[in-house]
């Protein structure tokens, strides 16, 4: 398959764009594979890609029940950052950041990763100290972070209200300059094309309906397109983890499924360059290359598999948006959508072998899964290939909850709606 480049674009344009080939094949499923990955989202596709690339395992199928990338990789607010408080998270997300930095090249697919920075605003001195704690934690792990004063912030984001008479004035911020955004759909397509080029079968419209087992051991899956056997079955279906695990007989999980809404405005001329977050509520925003302001806030806060939210969060998010950017009162919200998130009991993910023999599990991403896409696939592929975790995902076990080894960045305890 042809490499993408400016030259190939030109050559194809001269031929009326008639010679472009599908970005990935549409094969029928084979009877068996070395590895089956359930879930054709960002994490499933990146896992397949790294299995092939890093571990030479190419007899792999990715099974997607609908269209590829239809899960949260296609419905998020595109932010990429590694500015966490707790070391286990920071190390993992920083690994992801490093993979992002070379991703477009590696995939020969422009995922439009743009390191435009991520700024967390602080509104009280105590909160500023909290961010200092987090930024210092990052710096002690070799991750970039800096504190910014209001005047500097105003220069960076002129539309931001930093006046002292604001209800929650801006007293400073924590900036990670290497953070940024990426074109979410392109990430799924780029990994799909990359995996496909290495021989992975990507099978869309193939819904897993059950697991094949030999005693305790998982030996394959039943699907809407027939039974498929595999030595290893990996589950990467964040949002639907509860449903899929129940098919394998695992009744309960330390996860709740919640709706997260996101929004985009009509297209505008450049308004903000960085990703910015509000400290006195839950609001984050960036601007897409097309010009839409892309933003979101908290989850709706109740179990849901319906990709539809309700009004209270819509109102809350917009109110917080205007508290920071009072010039946006006459800008208009164009679209809203809802994604289903695995909310784990400590706000951190699970990437592990098990819980059944022959099974591997990747879930619990809360609403942080998009930025994790490269590292999630990379560490999951490692775990599948070697049957042991890499040091980056070693803390993200399933049994950490029962053992009290929680990784609770927000300090909210076993209350998923608060993570």
């Amino acid at each position: 398959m042809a490499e993408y480049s400016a030259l190939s674009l030109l050559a194809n344009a001269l031929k009326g764009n008639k010679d472009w080939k599908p970005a990935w094949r549409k094969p029928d499923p084979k009877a068996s594979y070395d590895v089956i990955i359930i879930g054709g989202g960002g994490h499933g596709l990146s896992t397949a890609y790294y299995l092939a690339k890093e571990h030479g395992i190419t007899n792999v199928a990715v099974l997607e029940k609908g269209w590829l990338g239809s899960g949260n990789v296609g419905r998020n607010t595109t932010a990429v950052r590694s500015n966490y408080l707790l070391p286990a998270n920071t190390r993992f997300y920083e690994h992801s950041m490093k993979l992002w930095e070379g991703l477009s090249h590696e995939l020969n697919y422009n995922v439009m990763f743009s390191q435009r920075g991520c700024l967390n605003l602080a509104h009280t001195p105590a909160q500023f100290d909290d961010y200092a704690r987090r930024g210092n934690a990052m710096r002690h792990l070799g991750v970039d972070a800096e504190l910014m004063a209001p005047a500097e912030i105003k220069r960076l984001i002129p539309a931001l209200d930093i006046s002292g008479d604001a209800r929650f004035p801006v007293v400073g911020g924590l900036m990670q300059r290497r953070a940024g955004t990426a074109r979410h759909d392109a990430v799924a397509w780029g990994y799909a094309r990359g995996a496909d080029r290495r021989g992975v079968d990507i099978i869309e419209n193939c819904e897993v309906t059950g697991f094949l087992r030999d005693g305790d051991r998982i030996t394959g899956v039943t699907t809407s397109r027939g039974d498929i056997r595999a030595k290893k079955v990996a589950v990467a279906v964040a949002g639907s983890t509860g449903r899929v695990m129940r098919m394998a007989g695992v009744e309960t999980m330390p996860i709740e499924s919640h709706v997260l809404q996101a929004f985009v405005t009509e297209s505008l001329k450049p308004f903000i360059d960085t990703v910015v977050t509000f400290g006195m509520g839950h609001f984050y925003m960036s601007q897409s290359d097309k010009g839409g302001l892309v933003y979101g806030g908290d989850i709706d806060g109740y179990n849901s598999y319906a990709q539809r939210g309700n009004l209270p969060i819509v109102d809350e998010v917009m109110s917080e948006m205007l508290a920071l950017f009072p010039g946006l009162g006459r800008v208009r919200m164009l679209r809203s959508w809802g994604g289903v998130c695995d909310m784990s009991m400590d706000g951190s993910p699970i990437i592990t072998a098990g819980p059944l023999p022959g099974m591997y599990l990747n879930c619990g991403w809360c609403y942080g899964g998009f930025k994790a896409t490269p590292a999630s696939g990379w560490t999951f592929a490692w775990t599948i290939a070697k049957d042991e975790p890499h040091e980056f995902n070693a803390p993200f076990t399933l049994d950490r909850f029962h053992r009290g080894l929680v990784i609770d960045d927000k300090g909210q305890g076993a209350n998923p709606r608060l993570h």
Partner: protein
Amino acid sequence: MLITCPYCGPRDVIEFTYQGDGNRERPDPASQNFEAWNAYVYDRLNPAGDHNELWQHSGGCRAHLRVVRNTLTHEISSVAFARGNHAPAARRKSEDKP
């Protein structure tokens, strides 16, 4: 979304606080059964379909309610005071199929 509080009548979801999975059983306070405690604190049924759950009418009468709500459609099929200790109307486990 509207929840019909048995005392206050139908009210907007904005008045309520979600208190999660209503299937969990708190072990006897003196119990040292860690398995049971862990299950109570951390494990969730998280069904796609009818879900027994607890809500507090925190912006109203402040009563806790046992609600059966479908997580696929958001349809609410029953609401009762938690204090009445009504048995959940939805199944605890998938094998309890009627």
